[in-house]
C-alpha cells in the first residue's frame, strides 16, 4: 500500500525537483551578484559563496573609476526621454491605424510590420554615418532617435486599441471634441494600463540598450551604466568586486520595475501574441 502510494507520488516528486533546480539556477546569478559585491576579486573568481567584508572597498574603488552621478543621470535621461517619446509617437500611430482605416493605411501598416524583420546589424553602419553627417555622434539624441518609431510598439498599441470602446469616441465627437482632444483627454486615460505595460517594455529596452550606444557614445562623459560595466569587465585584469557594484546598479531599476509592475510586465510581453 505504502509503496503503491509512493509510486504514484513519484512523478510529483520529480516535478518538484525539476522545477526546484530550474528555479535555483534562474535565481542563483542574482544571489551571486549580491554576494560578489561583498567579496574581493580573488575570492569572486575562486567561487567564494559566503558574504565577505569588502563591500565598502568595492564601492570605493568603483567610485574612483566611475563618475556615478553622471553615469546614472545619462542612463536615466536616455531611458525616460526615449521611453516617453516612443510611447507618444507609437501610441498616436497605433490609434491612427486602428481608428481611421483606409486601403492605403492598411498597406502601409503591413509594410511597417515587415520592418520587424529588419535586423539592427543591417542598420548600424548607415545610421552611424547619418549621425556623423548630423553632427550627433557622442550625443544622447543619437541614442534615442532611431528607437522612437518602433514597429513592435505601434503594433502593440493598435492591438490594444481594438478594446477601446468606439461609443466613447462617437459620444466625444457628438460633443464637438476634436480628434486630438479625444486622443489626449479620453483615449490616454482610458488606456492607462496599456500605457503602463508599454512603459515597462520600452523602459527596459532603453535602459539595457547596448550595441547602438556602444557605437555612438565614445566619450566617458556621455556613457551609460551598461557601457561602464562592459568596459570595467573587459579590461585585462577586471576587478570583479567593482564590476558587481556596477551590475547591481544596472539591474536594480529593472528589478524594481518588474516587482512593482509584474502584471503589466507580463501583459506587455504577451501583447504581441493576442
Amino acid at each position, binding site marked *: 500500500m505504502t509503496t503503491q502510494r509512493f509510486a504514484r507520488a513519484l512523478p510529483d516528486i520529480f*516535478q518538484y525537483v*525539476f*522545477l526546484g533546480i*530550474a528555479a535555483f539556477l*534562474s*535565481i542563483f*546569478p542574482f544571489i*551571486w551578484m549580491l554576494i*560578489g559585491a561583498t567579496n574581493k576579486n580573488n575570492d*569572486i*573568481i*575562486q*567561487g567564494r559563496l559566503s558574504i565577505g567584508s569588502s563591500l565598502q572597498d568595492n564601492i570605493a574603488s568603483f567610485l574612483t573609476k566611475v563618475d556615478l552621478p553622471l553615469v546614472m543621470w545619462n542612463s536615466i535621461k536616455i531611458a525616460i526621454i526615449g521611453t516617453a517619446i516612443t510611447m507618444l*509617437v*507609437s501610441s*498616436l*500611430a497605433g490609434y*491612427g*491605424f486602428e481608428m*481611421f482605416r*483606409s486601403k492605403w493605411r492598411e498597406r*502601409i501598416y503591413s509594410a511597417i510590420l515587415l*520592418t520587424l*524583420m529588419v*535586423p*539592427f*546589424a*543591417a*542598420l*548600424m*553602419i*548607415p545610421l552611424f554615418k*547619418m549621425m556623423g553627417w548630423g553632427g550627433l555622434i557622442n550625443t544622447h539624441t543619437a541614442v534615442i*532617435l*532611431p528607437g*522612437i*518609431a518602433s*514597429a513592435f510598439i*505601434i503594433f502593440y498599441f493598435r492591438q490594444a486599441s481594438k478594446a477601446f470602446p468606439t461609443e466613447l469616441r462617437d459620444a466625444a465627437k457628438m460633443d464637438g471634441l476634436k*480628434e*486630438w482632444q479625444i486622443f489626449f483627454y479620453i483615449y490616454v486615460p482610458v488606456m492607462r494600463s496599456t500605457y503602463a505595460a508599454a512603459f515597462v517594455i520600452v523602459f527596459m529596452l532603453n*535602459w*539595457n540598450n547596448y*550595441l547602438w550606444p556602444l*557605437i555612438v557614445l565614445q566619450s566617458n562623459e556621455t556613457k551609460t551604466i*551598461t557601457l561602464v*560595466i*562592459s568596459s570595467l*569587465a*573587459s579590461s585585462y585584469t*577586471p576587478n*570583479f568586486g567593482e*564590476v558587481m557594484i556596477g*551590475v547591481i546598479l*544596472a*539591474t536594480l531599476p529593472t528589478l524594481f520595475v518588474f516587482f512593482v509592475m*509584474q502584471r503589466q510586465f*507580463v501583459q506587455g*510581453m504577451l501583447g504581441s*501574441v493576442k
Partner: protein
Amino acid sequence: METARPGGLKRYYDVNEWLFVGPALALIALFMLYPIAYSLYLSAFSGKGMMVKFAGFGNIIRLTKDPVFITALTNTITFFVIQVPIMITLALILASLLNNPRLKFSGFFRTAIFLPCVSSLVAYSVLFKSMFALDGVVNSALETIGIISEPISWFTEPFWAKTLIIIALTWRWTGYNMIFYLAALQNIDRSIYEAARIDGVPAWARFVYITVPMLKPVILFTTVISTIGTIQLFDEVYNLSAEGKGGPADSTLTLSLYIYNLTFRYMPSFGYAATVSYVIVVLVALLSLLQFYVARERR
C-alpha cells in the same frame, strides 16, 4: 473596408488622420527604410577609410573567399541550430509543469524562472564571466557533484566557449519563452487533459500529442523571434570573450560582432561590412519564410 467618412468634413479628417500616423511614418522612413537602402548602396563599394571605389558584386565574391566570414557564419548558425531547440523544449516542459492546477508554489516557480529576463544582456554576461572562471563557482560545483574531474577552461577552449554562450542564452531566454506558452496553455480547455488522463494516456504522451500540437502557432512565433534574435547575437559574445573579440580563435565570433569589428575596430570598410549585414537580412528573411511555410504545410 471602411473607406468613406460621413459628412462634408472628409477632407479635414483625412489630413487629421495622417497627422496621427505621420510622425511614426516619417521616423521609420528616416531611420529604417533609408538606412536599409543606403546599406545596399554601400555594399557595392570596396576599400577602407577614404580610399573607396565602386566594386559591383566584388564584395559578394570577397565573402566567399573570406575565412573569417565563413567562421562567423558557421558560428552564428551553430548557435541557433543548437540553442533554439534546447531552449524551446525546456520552456515547453516548464510551462506544462507549471500549468498543472494542483502544483504548489507555482507562483514562486514562475516568477523565479522568469526572473532572468529582467537582467540586462551586458549585466548577465559579466556575471557569467565571473561565475565561469577557471577556479570559479561553476567549476567547483561541477567538481563537487562529480560531473567533471578537472576544471573546464570555459574561455580558452573553443568548444567550451561555444557551450558557455549556449548555456548563457538558455539561462536568459527560457523564462521569456515559457511565459508565452503559459499564456497559450491557459486557453486550452482543461477537459481535454482530464479526458486523456482518464483514458490512461501517460503524461509524456499528453505533452507530445496534446500540448505541442495545440501550441503550434505560439511555438512557431517564439521560434521565429528566438532565431532572429540569435542571428543578431552580439551583446553576449562581445562581453563574454576576452576584449570583446569573439575568441578564443574566433570560436564565438558572430556575424554582428564581425560587422562591428570590420566597421569600428579597424580601419572602417563600410562597403564590405554592409555586405555582411545583408547576409543577416537574407538569413532572417529566409528563416522566417521557411518556418511559416513548414507550419502551413502541416496544418
